[in-house]
């Protein structure tokens, strides 16, 4: 069987790492690129299967979503949640400044 190796470049990996907030050491990028390319090769192999008549699967379980009735069941537990937060003030969680 012919496997079309999907091309993946180092800058693809760098962009994806940034989107996923993953820090990859510069010297490791080449190796990560290689390994992901191998995984994508497997995906390519799977994609050679003819799935024209198969409906896309959103979930492997043969079940449908149960719905809950619209009722407030959660009390205010702010104190407990904020006790484990690194920084809070006036009831707000504080995070490093986000520049918009």
């Amino acid at each position, binding site marked *: 069987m012919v496997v079309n190796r999907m091309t993946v470049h180092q800058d693809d990996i760098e962009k994806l790492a940034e989107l996923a907030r993953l820090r990859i050491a510069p010297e490791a990028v080449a190796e990560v690129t290689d390994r992901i390319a191998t995984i994508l090769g497997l995906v390519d192999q799977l994609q050679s299967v003819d799935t024209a008549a198969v409906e896309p699967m959103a*979930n492997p379980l043969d079940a449908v979503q149960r719905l809950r009735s619209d*009722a407030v069941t959660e009390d205010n537990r702010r104190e407990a949640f904020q006790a484990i937060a690194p920084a809070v003030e006036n009831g707000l969680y504080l995070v490093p400044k986000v520049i918009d």
Partner: protein
Amino acid sequence: MNWEVVIGLEVHLQLATESKIFSGAATRFGAEPNTQACAVDLAMPGMLPVLNEQAVRYAVMFGLGIGAEIGLRSVFDRKNYFYPDLPKGYQISQFQEPIVGRGHFDIQLEDGSVRRIGITRAHLEEDAGKSLHEDFHNQTGIDLNRAGTPLLEIVSEPDLRSAEEAVAYLKTLHSLVTSLGISDGNMAEGSMRCDINLSLRPAGSETLGTRAEIKNVNSFRFVEKAIHHEIERQADILEAGGQVVQETRLYDAERDETRSMRSKEVANDYRYFPEPDLLPVVIEQSWVDSIRASLPELPAAKRERFIADYGLSAYDATVLAAERPLADFYEAVVKHCGDAKIAANWVQVELLGQLNRSDLTLNESPVDAQALAALLQRILDGSISGKIGKQVFEAMWAGEGDADSIIEARGLRQVSDSGALEAMVSEVIRANPEQVAQYLAADENRRKKLSGFFVGQIMKLSKGQANPQMVNDLLNQQLADAGGHGDT
């Protein structure tokens, strides 16, 4: 060059559920920060979303209201991006298989013309929290009360051609969703937020130009202003031979301008994939049918009924049918006073005018429908004139009591006693011999004008309480008599 404006709108509508879309935390507006953010909303490890049935029902109601196909099977996806007010690092939304498919509704423009606007889709998703950037020693404060609030994102086709059409679209949409009762539609509290996609193309061209997206505009007036600004900005670029960059811009209401959002440079790659924590949502056709059967009357149908049953003009019917609370108020006034036209007039002019001047909503009106109807009955049965009615209405507004007690206390009852009126008419005629002579010498047209003078004097003498119809009759009679002396 002559540019054609092409606009599509994305509206994020907050659904009026009690609890969040995937958790049992409350959605009430204005609570203390983070008091309505539970473990699911905070994305604590191991927490799983469970879908709120009411949110699904509201989405179906909207779909039925715009004649759309309802997705009997819909799927939730993860939309991935990092921002501190989105604790999970992804928003649960619907991408490939939304719950509401293609539909449409009609908008009416000021010149009376009607345009049909296509809806591409509407899907369910969760809202994010709020970031507060000021006053935290160079840190950002996060309030997650809003995180997980159910939203219906309603995407229009690029069918709108002007700011006026965009505003008409939003007003019609607002009227529709509040009539359905699926959202409070409170724009000031962010219940209806709008993203504007706008591009220009040479008039007559079929291909779309490059668009810019303006995010998060939250009032009808700002939508109008933001669109005017963006049209000007893009026209300037194109006329200088430049190219519009596809980007996201923010409307700054204070400076009245749009500006580029730089923070999302690497964004717009949301890497959607099916949400593994939720199963596909499958709803039964019979459930959809039962929702359809219980839909309230929609504004377009109500408007037609007001024209047919109450004999209202198209304009009056549009105003009164647009929002359910006002329509219900109006119908209650009609029911209690028995006259649809005087009710339409008073609700639109006096009631809405006073609400506007007092900056109150209909709910807060100090005069309810029954009280207003009781006042209108006194005008209809001739106890007071319309003019005195306005005085009584103002007193009712100020909390002085109901119509009858104010009329009684202030002695405003219309004088319909013909003896008393006759005396007043005679007095005015005696006091103005010059005008009487002029009247008698005048032709038909001038007589009408001059008789207005006498009526004015008589009304003044009666402090506005004379029955105008009787005054007219008595006056005509006495003037005819005065003219008759010479002949007989």
